[in-house]
């Protein structure tokens, strides 16, 4: 079967970065809404719904830079998140850094270096084989962080929990409101940086590599350099997301939080949300994180008393799988695209020239 992964990966969504961003006004309104969350909703919604969705969205963004924009499939997202979390812990415990924001940024840089190393084979290989390299990374990290007690400060048990650390004068373990705003501001800054990066020449070269690796080389793009860069920057984002997940959301974590299921989850997020879309990551994260909760709630409400709990648990798993498949069949380009079409329909207008171009571009994949 002649499927060339690099070309088949090309997403249907417009690769023009400007089209994937939203207008300043919309972004402003969304930001205000996010800032208001702790005031207008409960502790539960703030720290167990919105916060993890933001963090997973950030991880999705990291993976999307590599997979969506540069066309390199990775199943190692969980592993790189682990590197970020364990690096933060090592910097705090072994490195004596007391200021959490510094530790987390340095951890991101360390993860970027690790990502760069693991990206080296990708210069020679393509498609599924890159995916397997990333799987190798995933399993290697799972083993590494379990095996060497240095990574969890020689405890009996390989779980890590930060010592008291400062977060702009607050304690990291302190109020969820502080942790929420820290997460939000980091996510906003990093997202803004990513969107600038994508519209720069770096982003354009990534997309050229994604769309036609060999041709990109012919027109003089140093594909080695840009692929390595994509691995490093993607890892930077994933590392920071991992540290946030481990210490800001969970508090106490272990390698169990970053196993292969996490990698699948992040991949689901970008596929459901939309490849090569920035806001798609956050929409996808919301969908993937909330879906099991909604199913749980619905199942308990509607069939909870009629079936055994064992059956109910499995039914939820079954439904999650069904919804994923239905979604892939009905909307292959992600929720982002769906929303675009919905709004276009709401405005009762014919598609603009731009939309038509998008449609035309998506044809080869259908």
């Amino acid at each position, binding site marked *: 079967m002649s499927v060339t992964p690099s070309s088949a990966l090309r997403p249907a969504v417009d690769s023009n970065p400007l089209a994937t961003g939203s207008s300043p006004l919309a972004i402003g309104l969304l930001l205000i809404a996010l800032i208001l969350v702790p005031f207008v909703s409960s502790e539960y919604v703030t720290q167990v719904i919105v916060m993890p969705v933001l963090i997973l969205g950030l991880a999705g963004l990291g993976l999307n830079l590599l997979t969506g924009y540069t066309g390199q499939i990775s199943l190692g997202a969980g592993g790189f998140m682990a590197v970020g979390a364990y690096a933060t812990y090592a910097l705090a415990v072994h490195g004596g850094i007391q200021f959490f924001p510094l530790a987390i940024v340095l951890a991101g840089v360390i993860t970027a270096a690790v990502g760069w190393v693991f990206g080296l084979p990708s210069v020679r290989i393509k498609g599924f084989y890159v995916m397997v390299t990333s799987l190798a990374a995933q399993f290697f990290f799972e083993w590494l962080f379990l095996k060497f007690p240095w990574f969890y400060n020689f405890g*009996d*048990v390989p779980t890590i929990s930060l010592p008291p650390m400062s977060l702009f004068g607050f304690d990291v373990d302190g109020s969820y409101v502080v942790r929420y705003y820290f997460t939000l501001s980091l996510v906003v800054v990093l997202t803004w940086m990513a969107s600038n990066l994508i519209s720069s020449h770096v982003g354009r070269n990534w997309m050229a590599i994604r769309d036609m690796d060999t041709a990109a080389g012919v027109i003089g793009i140093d594909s080695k350099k840009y692929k390595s860069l994509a691995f490093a920057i993607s890892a930077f984002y994933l590392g920071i997301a991992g540290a946030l997940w481990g210490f800001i959301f969970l508090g106490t974590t*272990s390698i169990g939080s970053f196993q292969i299921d996490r990698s699948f989850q992040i991949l689901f997020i970008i596929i459901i949300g939309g490849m090569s879309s920035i806001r798609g990551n956050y929409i996808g994260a*919301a969908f993937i994180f909330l879906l099991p909760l909604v199913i749980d709630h619905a199942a308990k409400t509607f069939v909870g008393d009629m079936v055994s709990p*064992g059956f109910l648990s499995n039914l939820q798993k079954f439904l999650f799988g069904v919804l994923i498949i239905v979604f892939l069949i009905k909307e292959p380009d992600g929720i982002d695209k769906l929303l675009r079409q919905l709004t276009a329909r709401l405005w009762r207008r014919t598609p603009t020239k731009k939309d038509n171009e998008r449609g035309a571009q998506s044809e080869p994949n259908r």
Partner: protein
Amino acid sequence: MGKHLLSLGAAAAIATSAFLSTSVVPTAPAQAESMTQYVPLFVYRTGPYASSGSLWFAGERDYFTFINEVEGGVNGVKFDIEEFETEYNPDRAVEAYERAKGGKDGSPTAFIMTHSTPATYALMDRAREDKIPLFDPAGGPSESKNGLVFPYVFPLLLTFYGQGSVAVNFIAEEMGGFENLKDKKIVTVYHDSGYGRASQPVMAELAKKYGFIDVQIPVAHPGSEQAAIWRQVRAEKPDYVVLRTWGVMTPVALKTAKRFGIDTSKMLGDVWAGSKADMIPAGDAAIGYKAIAPYPGGTDFGVHAKVKEHVLDTGKTNLANPDEDFGAVYYNIGLVNAALAVEGMRVAMKKFGNRPLTGEEMLWGLEHMTIDADRLEELGMTGLLQQLKVTPYDHEGGGAARIQEWNGNGWTLVSDWIEVDDSVVDPLIEAKAAAYAAEQGIVPRTVE
């Protein structure tokens, strides 16, 4: 631009509706009005460890059903049980915890059964803040036996350190005394995780004390192929083998051990490597294998007659196959855990009144719980549960286990209660607890 606005609006609408549908779950705890006690159970009825978990949760639910139906609740307060599926994943336990901690329908959450050591670790800090006791008998961090540093964690009955100590005491008994342990080799094959390693410090300490050689060999999860491991074990020529395995790792270990000619009668499993679910797939290879049992298997205990009459025979059991699994080790674990919770509530109610309890009240109850021989007899748990005295200083409360042997169809008890050697274990626990308190900046509380 309007288009973008609208699409954002749509996104917000999706998100908001999702919030609404989930945020109705946690409600503020309004005290006292309700006469039910809300109990969240964190379960894994699907995923790799479902085969062990399902029986455990069934035991708990059957006991709660028994209390509700036959005794009309605990002093009139009935249980309202809600399950949260976690697939044994601590991250999902965190989400479930946040949903459950606020209580339900006016009842506060008095305690949470985590059913998982990793989940207990993940929830420790939150539980301390929210003042909700975490119930993890024969699991959790060993050092949480120290209730001054870990007020809200209850590794009741037997900590992991204790399990190591009981194992060595039993092996010494088998060999005819502690003096015979000298220069003997005890190989521990363990699940490469926090759980599997948790007894290593105590084994190392005991090896020093008695002069035996302590060899530790890890098996990576899930452990479906262990030939290389057991070849190593055989090369070590062990005098005794201890299994700290979990899930599918246990039957594969037994089968592979047999293939490599390791004497099954010289193999001893810990609490979590000793259930019928682990023995059945191993077939003949499991005959003669022994396991530590703070709660042994079997249906001959008084409580079983009561539960059978009022829960099984009335069709209210939570077991999928009551004929096969009634009295299984994991089922009995469930019965005992639920009974401990009920006893803790009774103690607390004497002080605070017959109404649904808060976490703090439950803490008081658990820390003043004494179960003596008479009480065991009343509960129908003589021989199934050890005598227990829990205090703020000692969250283990017991510290003993029996040894059971698999005969191909079921477990037979081959020892009475074997006590933990506290002179070795307690200093280790104190040191660990102190180190934890220092690292996390916790000031141990003082009690009256």
